């Protein structure tokens, strides 16, 4: 033990804080021995228990990104083309969320964040508070939230425990978001054994604001008062950030106090009060939400960003439990709270707003000269730390990486090891895919979300992208949002898998008529201290970063969730990509559904026949193997530029990208509109039938054009260097008829296919109700 220097803190009236800091205590706080030595060197003395707690949350992966910060620097954070729409106004990592320009003086703030570990233990509260946290990040920026989406991952839906998690997560999101009155546009949901015991719950929020209204999370101006606003602090969520930075074990359910409890009504009041306060010119100096690591994180981060000191007194913090000590108050993750720094002398203006909304507004401290974060409790200093030691100076690690054996094996797997599908199996093969909950209709989920509130919903959930009108800004532009990440590809080839997540997401936007502007990503991975898991993380980040640079679509923020492991091992790498795009006017908003007979269907992207990693291999052969489909960023760009251009020309009636399940699933989904029309399609009979019909090769889209536009469209495709093949026509038959060469290989009723697809999840969930 080192010498206690003369700057040591006075004896604390709370005996808990006078305990000796033992090796065991340090380890239980998730602080490594060498990290503790750094703390001793920084302080010149031993920390007390409150200070140790503060370091443990601030130096956790959740807050400090200590295992990923170097990798994240690979992401481009601004546009190379300075003339393009979508310039970055607030970059990744600078504030609570990134902001991009959408024209007319308006900006969009958006970000995705994970709440995986809490949701594994307490699905309803975990998911609900996940929504609450990300919404606070957005309105902290001064933005009015206008949409929500989620990326969700669960294990095998036939498992009763998975059903419980799925039901709990969906109702938690529904409960919280609906009450706030922010439309939830759905998102993406995958089901795979690898998420058994460790579901992923990533929540995204986007908001809109005027450029001049962007708020900063910095404590500046010595003497300015620091306010705590929102409901009182309790013991809930104690140490949530460090909890999120551990692997889940069978004993994790005992961590339940580390899961926060949400109150969407409080959040709604806080949202309205904060926006009302921020609308008062010049009143707010800095604002930051109390999310992970609560009061601790908000005070040291605002001080660190403002290059100043901060001093707070915990006796002034509103509390809803009695007898809380400073450790508990500082580390509590009670929800729906914010830290606000206002101009000295204008305190009354803030207090009046919060009084109107019946919320606490407690003056708890001041911005100070210097660089220290000082916390008082019951008349004694309980923490006195350099603010930057907790933020900028947190440790950063490079971990050893090694390629897992299964990745090498996957590359060497040959499709020849399985027989091709026989013609008579095609119908059941297609139905098996439509019945897989990853591919099946998610109506059961999004019908529980209010996606129409705020009067903006243009394309309801379930299409390639969710689209909302920017009605709040009174401009006739449309914001499109898509999430994507196929874990199977990332598991078999992390670099390509991450690129596929990126290009699919972007293709979803293009199919809706939207030009992609920027990305927020949620990196969900296993334990970074295991070289194989770190390899997957590193390769995924490189793949994403290269795609971002190629398309000049920067990353403006996101989240890292590591230690996603349970029982048998890590989840598949899941770098969720969420992309925001813009559509200039209503006529250019394009949907996937075919509603009329006589349309011509054209396949863009040709007939590659890759089967590796496909859902077909899962449903028909129970295999997660094979080489991941090739990704050509150049081809992808050609296809997407063509799509957006032709949508603007008014030529495309519908467009839908080929993804999970391949060609036939894509066609079927296009026919599941209101009118249940039919289609007759001819496909060349070359190579394997299974790979042609169900392979998931990239860069492919089915578009529908009227017969009078067909020739012009094909000639534009040629000019653009995109292979375009005539597939067939829509009809009133109500049937899907597929010919390969001259032979009819499938003739089946659309209504039957639709019923399989629409009922898969409800039937599965209904069977769990007792």
């Amino acid at each position, binding site marked *: 033990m080192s010498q206690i220097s003369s700057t040591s803190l006075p004896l604390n009236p709370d005996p808990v804080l006078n305990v000796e800091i033992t090796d065991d205590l340090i380890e239980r706080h998730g602080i490594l021995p060498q990290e503790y030595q750094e703390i001793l060197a920084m302080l010149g003395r031993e920390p007390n228990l409150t200070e140790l707690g503060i370091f443990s949350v601030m130096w956790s992966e959740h807050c400090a990104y200590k295992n990923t910060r170097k990798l994240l620097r690979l992401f481009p954070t601004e546009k190379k083309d300075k003339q393009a729409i979508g310039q970055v106004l607030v970059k990744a990592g600078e504030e609570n969320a990134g902001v991009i320009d959408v024209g007319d003086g308006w900006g969009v703030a958006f970000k995705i964040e994970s709440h995986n570990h809490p949701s594994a233990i307490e699905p309803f509260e975990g998911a609900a508070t996940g929504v609450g946290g990300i919404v606070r990040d957005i309105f902290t920026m001064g933005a009015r939230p206008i949409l929500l989406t989620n990326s969700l991952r669960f294990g095998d839906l036939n498992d009763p425990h998975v059903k419980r998690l799925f039901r709990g997560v969906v109702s938690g999101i529904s409960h919280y978001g609906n009450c706030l009155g922010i439309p939830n546009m759905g998102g993406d949901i995958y089901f795979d054994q690898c998420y058994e015991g460790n579901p992923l719950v990533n929540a995204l929020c986007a908001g809109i604001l005027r450029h001049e209204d962007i708020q900063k999370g910095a404590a500046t101006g010595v003497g300015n008062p620091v306010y705590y606003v929102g409901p009182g602090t309790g013991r809930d969520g104690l140490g949530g950030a460090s909890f999120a930075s551990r692997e889940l074990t069978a004993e994790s359910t005992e961590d339940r106090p580390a899961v926060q409890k949400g*109150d969407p*009504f409080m959040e709604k009041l806080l949202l309205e009060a904060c926006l009302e306060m921020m609308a008062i010119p010049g009143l707010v100096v800095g604002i930051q939400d109390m999310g992970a690591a609560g009061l601790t994180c908000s005070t040291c981060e605002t001080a660190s960003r403002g290059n100043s000191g901060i001093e707070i007194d915990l006796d002034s913090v509103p509390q809803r439990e009695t007898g809380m000590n400073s450790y508990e108050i500082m580390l509590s993750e009670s929800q729906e709270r914010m830290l606000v720094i206002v101009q000295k002398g204008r305190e009354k203006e803030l207090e009046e707003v919060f009084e109107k909304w019946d919320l606490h507004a407690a003056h708890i401290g001041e911005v100070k000269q210097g660089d220290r974060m000082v916390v008082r409790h019951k008349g004694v200093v309980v923490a006195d730390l350099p603010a930057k030691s907790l933020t900028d100076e947190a440790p950063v690690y490079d971990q050893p990486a090694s390629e897992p054996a299964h990745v090498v094996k996957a590359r060497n797997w040959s499709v020849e090891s399985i027989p091709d599908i026989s013609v008579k199996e095609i119908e059941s093969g297609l139905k098996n895919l439509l019945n897989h909950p990853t591919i099946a209709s998610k109506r059961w989920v*999004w019908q*529980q979300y209010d996606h129409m509130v705020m*009067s903006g919903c243009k394309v309801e959930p379930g299409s390639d992208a969710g689209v909302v009108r920017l009605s709040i800004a009174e401009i006739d532009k449309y914001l499109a949002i898509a999430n994507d990440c196929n874990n199977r590809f990332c598991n078999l080839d992390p670099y390509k898998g991450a690129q596929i997540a990126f290009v699919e997401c972007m293709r979803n936007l293009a199919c809706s008529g939207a030009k992609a502007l920027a990305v927020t990503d949620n990196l969900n991975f296993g334990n970074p201290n295991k070289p194989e898991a770190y390899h997957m993380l590193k390769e995924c980040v490189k793949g994403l970063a290269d795609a971002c640079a190629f398309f000049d679509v920067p990353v403006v923020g996101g989240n890292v969730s590591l230690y996603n492991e349970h029982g048998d091992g890590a989840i598949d790498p899941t770098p969720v990509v969420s992309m925001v795009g813009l559509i200039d006017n209503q006529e250019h908003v394009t949907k996937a559904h075919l509603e009329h007979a006589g349309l011509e269907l054209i396949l863009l992207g040709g007939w590659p026949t890759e089967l590796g990693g496909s859902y077909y291999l899962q449903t028909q052969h129970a295999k997660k193997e094979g080489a991941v489909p090739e990704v050509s960023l150049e081809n992808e760009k050609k296809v997407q530029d063509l799509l957006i251009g032709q949508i603007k020309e008014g030529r495309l009636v519908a467009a839908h990208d080929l993804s999970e399940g391949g060609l036939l699933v894509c066609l079927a989904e296009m026919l599941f509109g209101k009118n249940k029309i039919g289609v007759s399609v001819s496909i060349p009979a070359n190579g394997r039938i299974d790979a042609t019909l169900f392979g998931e090769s990239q860069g492919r889209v089915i578009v529908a054009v009227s017969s009078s536009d067909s020739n012009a469209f094909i000639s534009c495709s040629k000019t653009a260097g995109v292979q375009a093949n005539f597939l067939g026509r829509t009809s009133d038959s109500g049937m899907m008829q597929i010919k390969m060469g001259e032979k009819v290989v499938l003739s089946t009723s659309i209504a039957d296919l639709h019923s399989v697809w629409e009922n898969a999840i409800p039937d599965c969930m209904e069977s769990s109700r007792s």
Partner: protein
Amino acid sequence: MRVAILQFPGSNCDWDSEHAIRDVLGVSAHRVWHKARLPSETEAVIVPGGFSFGDYLRCGAIARFSPIMHDLKEFAERGGQVLGICNGFQILCESGLLPGALIRNDCLDFRCLNQNLTVENSNERFNQNTLGGSLVLPIAHGEGNFRADESVLSSLEENQQVLIRYDGNPNGSVNAIAGIRNSAGNVYGMMPHPERAVCSHHPCLDGLPVLKAFLEPLLGSIPVEVNSG
């Protein structure tokens, strides 16, 4: 101001309602905070959807005690026009301005969808001539299951106080009731959201005739300039 849109803590369709009345129908409308007084020049009141006071306890059960409810009751007693939408309907039922109650959907889940509705011939404003025989309007609620005891129900039916009914009951409402009026014909309540079906980017424009029927006493026979673009 002609139309007051009440704003309770937790209201979240107040902006949408204001937008529909002011920007689309072109009738002056403002939000009025629940602790304020109802302005004397008010000609009609909309109690909008949302989760007033978090809908804790029961939907609308706390909002009925808000200061503005005193003024609202007086306004209604004087024959003022009142429309409650979704949570607003729940508040009107809780406060006794409309009969019946709304309980948890029989499916137990929140439901958000475009709902087919059948229009009843209720009075000279709400009937199949003014609204058409059927409508499609968005619904979005977890507690829209309308209940009333036998005698209330039979008087609602006998007096033609039912405005609209669900096709294929999404929430278990008795007699598939989606909206009603009081016997005097000045207080209206419905679970569907007409304010979400008034613009060209909405799923349909069926909310326009509903809002126009409600505002008819203000608008008289002057054709309304609709700006749904």
